[in-house]
């Protein structure tokens, strides 16, 4: 019987949030002041201590991962994914519980972690390699391969501060891809970089785990990549493990998850000056629409400190996580004039979608294309496989339909 590569038992990570300080770090002055306050309080016999709250970033997590598995870690922002990776890669200590890891762990966390902008590509390969846990001899042996993979031969002796962001990512990934850890942890770095390179990376990761029996842990918001790359997935929400199983099943539950839980809109961007608080499709929360009919979106928002021109947009995802349509208000050449206070906007759209379940993200830009708000996968609707006159849909290729005029 093979032993699991990673075994997590009753793992919890607790943070103490203190409500009194807004600052990221404590200053000596505050500490002294608080000590003094506490003293006077004690003598007065009363008053509570500073407001503190325990917060579980991870709460009683149990799972096992076997060698050769490619596991996707799925969850919304704040679900505990990053904390899990941090605990697994020993950056922070768990508060309780136990993790047993068999094999070397290497993580590819963020683009160019440990790169020094002043050093050349060549020097950074050695630096980055050492940071990721490679021995010098190992880096030397693989040096040519790394340079080849990153496609940066010409710029080897240029300081990386002059690199384009694409080159930066390529170099970072190339070094990490040539690590030979038994367990590789990847946290959504592939978001940047050109499509061709992404493909190459994904290929390499698949290769690594299939042919060499290594384990990959992959965090991403891109359900499509998770589905193609990972054979298994784990879904997190609110610091708890919700479900684990095959990727296609877990991706589906992730997309559906909004339907079960109490609807809390996840604001991926913005959400401060202008906040989208309700979206309805065809006047309903779980609309079913016929083929080639009309979709009417009603977006309610609250502009607390914003007034002026604003551009709304709607993104429609299918149940594989692919964004199949992006609808922007400026496609019409117009902006919405928003006044502060509550408001609402109605969007009417011809439905060109093939039958299936769809998920909607809604957001708004200001005139300068910076996000006012972006709520992620907030609502869903279903396109039925009947036309509005009752005829049945015939399966075919293609992701979208079109109402065309046919003339003989």
């Amino acid at each position, binding site marked *: 019987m093979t032993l699991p590569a990673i075994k997590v038992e009753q793992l919890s990570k607790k943070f103490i949030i203190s409500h009194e300080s807004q600052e990221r770090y404590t200053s000596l002055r505050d500490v002294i002041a608080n000590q003094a306050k506490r003293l006077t309080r004690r003598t007065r016999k009363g008053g509570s201590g500073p407001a503190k709250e325990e917060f579980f970033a991870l709460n009683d997590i149990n799972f096992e991962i076997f060698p050769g598995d490619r596991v996707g870690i799925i969850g919304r922002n704040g679900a505990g994914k990053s904390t899990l990776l941090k605990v697994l890669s020993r950056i*922070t200590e768990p508060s309780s519980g136990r993790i047993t890891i068999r094999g070397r762990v290497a993580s590819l966390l963020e683009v160019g972690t440990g790169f020094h902008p002043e050093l050349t590509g060549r020097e950074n390969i050695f630096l980055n390699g050492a940071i990721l846990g490679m021995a010098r001899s190992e880096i030397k042996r693989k040096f040519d391969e790394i340079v080849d993979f990153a496609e940066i031969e010409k710029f080897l002796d240029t300081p990386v501060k002059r690199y384009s962001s694409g080159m930066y990512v390529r170099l970072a990934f190339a070094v990490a891809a040539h690590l030979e850890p038994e367990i590789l942890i990847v946290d959504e770095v592939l978001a940047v970089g050109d499509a061709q390179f992404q493909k190459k990376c994904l290929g390499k990761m698949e290769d690594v785990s299939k042919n060499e029996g290594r384990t990959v842990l992959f965090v991403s918001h891109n359900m499509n990549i998770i589905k193609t790359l990972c054979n298994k997935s784990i879904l997190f929400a609110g610091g708890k493990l919700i479900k684990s199983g095959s990727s296609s099943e877990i991706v589906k539950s992730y997309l559906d998850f909004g339907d079960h839980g109490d609807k809390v809109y996840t604001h991926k961007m913005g959400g401060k000056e202008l906040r989208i608080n309700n979206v309805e499709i065809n006047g309903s929360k779980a609309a079913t629409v016929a083929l080639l009919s009309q979709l009417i979106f009603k977006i309610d928002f609250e502009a607390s400190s914003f007034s002026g021109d604003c551009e709304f947009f709607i993104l429609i995802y299918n149940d594989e996580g692919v964004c199949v349509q992006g609808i922007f208000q400026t496609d019409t050449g117009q902006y919405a004039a928003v006044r502060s206070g509550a408001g609402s906007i109605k969007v009417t759209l011809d439905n060109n979608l093939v039958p299936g379940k769809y998920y909607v993200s809604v957001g708004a830009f200001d005139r300068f294309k910076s996000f006012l708000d972006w709520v992620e996968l907030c609502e869903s609707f279903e396109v039925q496989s009947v036309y509005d006159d009752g005829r049945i849909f015939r399966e075919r290729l293609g992701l979208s339909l079109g109402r065309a005029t046919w003339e003989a």
Partner: protein
Amino acid sequence: MSALESTVPELVIEAGHSEKHYWLDLWRYRELFYILSWRDIKVRYKQTAIGAAWSIIRPLLTMIIFTIIYGKLAHFAKDEIVPYAITVYAAMLPWQFFANALAEASNSLIGNSNLITKIYFPRMIIPASSVIVSFVDFGISALLMILLMAWYHFLPPVQVLLLPVFVIMTFLASFGTSLYITALNVKYRDFRYIIPFIVQFGLYISPVGFKSSKVPEQWRLLYSLNPMVGVIDGFRWCIVGEPIYLPGFLASCAVIIFFCIIGIRYFRKTEKTFADNI
């Protein structure tokens, strides 16, 4: 367990577990330590016009000013056989090393926060590598000492061979203090402002421009609680043959060892929470 499986290292992560393998881990990560030190040395004088010459110019200019102020204006150089410039420079060397190390190391953890929040390694590597950088500077400045001796036709006494012992002492003094302060700096950013201040007035309360024998006898032991007093006296004994005041020297040694111990202890205690606090 099969032979194959036994070759795979097994790691258990539990709350409070990291204690056990600490020093072993430090050894295992030595290569990272080399490369981080190399990086810091390499980038230290990048994009400067005169590069490493800075590590000669700074002590040289300070030495000249001190020689003029203390030697000529304050007449401390009266009835001295040894050129006063050499006496001052013998103290300037360890002092600059200490001051640079303290200044560099105290900000080192914060400067490397992107590494600390993203990968695991024994955190002690970071301040240690900034002390190493200052040590390289020290080495370069020491070359100037040789030139200075040649210029004045000065031959050091035989105990100059013991100098490495005092170099190690300076190293420990810098390292212990730096560990303590850099760990505190993660939590309380006040130390960012305290350090330049300490470095500034430390130059005047340490016997850099004058000999510690100028301090009244009854205060000398107390004065030696400044660890740099012992270090500087040691350097002067090796280089210019100035007699060493033994009780004071031992007191300085004790303070250095004390700082090393609390530095390491405090650092290790807080190290685990660096990633959460930084």
